[in-house]
């Protein structure tokens, strides 16, 4: 199998890697780049634990080929905080106890970040449907929804 050379941008940094044609972005992130924040819960796009943002849209990185990311901009959980400053969503997830085991958390945070970029003031229903592709088995979603609402309010406040 011939490797493919890919140049892409991850969390603002230029990144080059080699991958096989059948490797997914998730495989590349975890196995080649050491970015293990994206988790594989299913490998078939049903759980959202591997969510990353590609060119501004949230995607399941298990449903993207590594080769497809040539020239794209990828955001992962590892790039969410600014140095030691947590993103408001990250801070609110901790504050609202929106995680128990935490395996789904990186995926929820990436999806929620994309949500708030598109809809700064989402209704509860909008939050719930936007996040329907992220499975959580621990929390029953209650505290996750509240954390997203809290972060949205804070981010709207910060902008004015």
């Amino acid at each position, binding site marked *: *199998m011939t490797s493919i050379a890919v140049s892409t941008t991850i969390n603002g940094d230029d990144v080059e890697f080699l991958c*096989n044609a*059948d490797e997914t972005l998730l495989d590349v992130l*975890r196995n080649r780049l050491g*970015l*293990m*924040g*994206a*988790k*594989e*819960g*299913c*490998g*078939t796009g*049903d*759980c959202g*634990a591997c969510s990353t943002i590609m060119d501004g849209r949230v995607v399941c990185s298990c449903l993207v080929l590594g080769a497809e990311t040539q020239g794209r901009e990828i955001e*992962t*959980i*590892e790039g*969410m*905080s600014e140095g030691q400053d*947590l993103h408001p969503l*990250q*801070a609110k*997830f*901790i*504050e*609202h*106890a929106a*995680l*128990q*085991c*935490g*395996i*789904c*958390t*990186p995926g929820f*945070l990436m999806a929620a970040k994309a949500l708030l970029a598109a809809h700064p003031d989402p209704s509860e*229903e909008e*939050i*719930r*449907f936007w*996040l*329907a*592709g*992220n*499975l*959580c*088995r*621990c*929390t*029953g*979603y*209650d*505290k*996750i*929804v*509240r954390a997203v609402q809290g972060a949205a309010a804070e981010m709207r406040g910060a902008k004015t």
Partner: protein
Amino acid sequence: MTFDPSYKEQGLKSVGTRPLRPDGVDKVTGRARYGADFNMPGQLVGRVLRSPHAHARIVRIDTSQAEALKGVKAVVTAADLPDQSNGDAATFAVLDNCMARKKAMYDGHAVAAVAAIDASVAKAALKLIVVEYEVLPHVVDVDVAMAADAPVLDETVFTTGVEPAPKTPSNVANRSEFGHGDVEAGFAKADMIVERNYKTEQTHQGYIEPHACVANCNSDGTADLWVCTQGPFVYRQVCADLLGLDVSKLRVTSSEIGGGFGGKTHVWAEPVALALSRKAGRPVKLVMTREEVFRASGPTSATSIDVKIGAKKDGTITAAEATLRYTSGPYAGMWAELGAMTSFACYDLENVKTVGWEVVVNRPKVAAYRAPSAPMAAFAIESAVDELAHKIGMDAVDFRIKNAASDGSKSSYGPVYGPIGIGPTLEAAKSHPHMSAPLGENQGRGMACGFWFNFGGQTCVDLNIGADGTVTIAVGTVDVGGSRASLSLITAEELGIPYENVKAIVADTSSLGYNDMTDGSRGTFSSSMAAISAARNAIQVMRERAATMWDISVDDIIWEDGHAKAVGATHDNLAPLSVADIAAEAGNTGGPIAGHSELVADGAGVSFGTHICDVEVDPETGSTRVVRYTVIQDAGKAVHPDYVEGQYQGGAVQGIGWALNEEYVYGADGRLQNPGFLDYRIPVCSDLPMIDTQILEIPNPNHPYGVRGVGETSIVPPLAAVANAVSNAVDVRMFHIPVSPPRILAALNAQAKG
């Protein structure tokens, strides 16, 4: 020092507050390392070959082609995991489940495994393993498996618990019975009797993290296992037993765990990974796919339950009887027995009898799932109780209050209760605003109660005080949902220092004494008991050090508000010493300061909850939405209320999923049709409303702060609460869980036809 675990009422400063969890930053930044997030030098990729048949004799396995493939470093079969169970049936079942010996007992049963240099070589190697099967007749349904003409899975299974002992083998492994009084006499006194059969389908714990481990066996007999588990010490023991390793030479490190709910209390692929590593001489990483998780790891029992309950017109239950048939997978279990014990545990009954039948079938070996066996029994009993209340024209809550067990009631499983929380949760439900809120069109309200035993068990904690007076505690119960936060709170409370000064970690098996698993709602209950004991031991050391520093008798020193204080007229002018003051001088007063505790945390106390559920049903499609949900449960004392609420909410939603849509679907060939999150439908965010909680705090007399386990009970009532709500919304009783849209529509059609 003898540890006194009894409850003492006191003002609490840390316990009951809601600080940020210590592992929060790691988990929101992607830095927390789970089962699949660890690698070792020279590591191989392990994969398992699984049976495509529900029941088949393994005639021959030829691994030679796979072994010859470039990049393959080891292939193992049952021959590489020889039977060392010494006739212990339970151990043999675990071994046979990890790697089939003579027969594949279910679709997905492991028959061989490979370790190769990468995933694609491993995948190619699996295809080169030749397995010759003789396909045998299979059975997956519990009632069919009990029939006289069913194919017998195991010729060595003769039903125990019946007399005379049967002379022919069957699929019924055991009969158990509980109860007291005379049910026939009780039914004779009843004005109204409800008698029904209920069914529940098999579900899966559905943790988002698949089983994953890295195993490394060294040539000197030492071994390491990095693994996502609810019980590293138990995994160590089981793996050592199965592989013939010295227990103390196998070091098991529990990773962060991405959900378990009982499913990670059992070993699956870990012994196989160790066997592969032993054979290959290199570390092996083995991560199950989601499909493997569904096909080959821990489902619940599927059940068929007969219930008969009689009551007088005034609402007094005169007799109650249940026969519970539970599948246990291909090996004997005690799941029906648990169901039989919990069935009527909420009620004070003069005449009660429950019988449990353990049934082997060609499905995966049943594993514990949050309050195992209780939700199905509660569905059956609480449905019948609701129907009976309705028939005698009594309010469903009042009917339950009238019959609720209380201090001094003889439980349906035998012992007499002490102070218990079922009455208070029912009273709280009765007065809850949810109970009287108006309902819209096509909406219905249901409620149900649930019971679960909580456990304590063997526990060990180390507490070390740093030179600056900050504290680490090392615990051996895996943190599945925030227990490091609650254990830090408990430690801070006992020492009298700020929460921020305590750091809790989960230790590996070589660093701490044995701990039972995080199961039976015991994590916070038992480790907090040990943390309190360790803190008291450390306080004793600090009092002695203060005595040395002050050069006075230790008897003149008390511990108060996080300080050593000298008492007595002669010592008045001594300023109290903080933990930091004492720690700073530790080098000169006797060396490091630590507290240790090993104990058996018993007396966890039984747990009760009452749930209220509103649903809206589309009568034309059977589509059901939960529109409001309330959980009321006794926590004894909520150490970190956020995470107590989280347990209530999470358990309730798992129960809602079980009630509405989750089920294993088998084809006529006995193969699982829906081994993925697409068609095994756990609740998604948009399916649910907020889940309201009400925490009751009735102190547990057997814990210094009154703490009870809170993890499991919340999954017990929802099946019945949802089914009762559906029944009230569309006026048709539902007897089969999940109450999926096709089942609801079929029931409505049947009713319309009369």
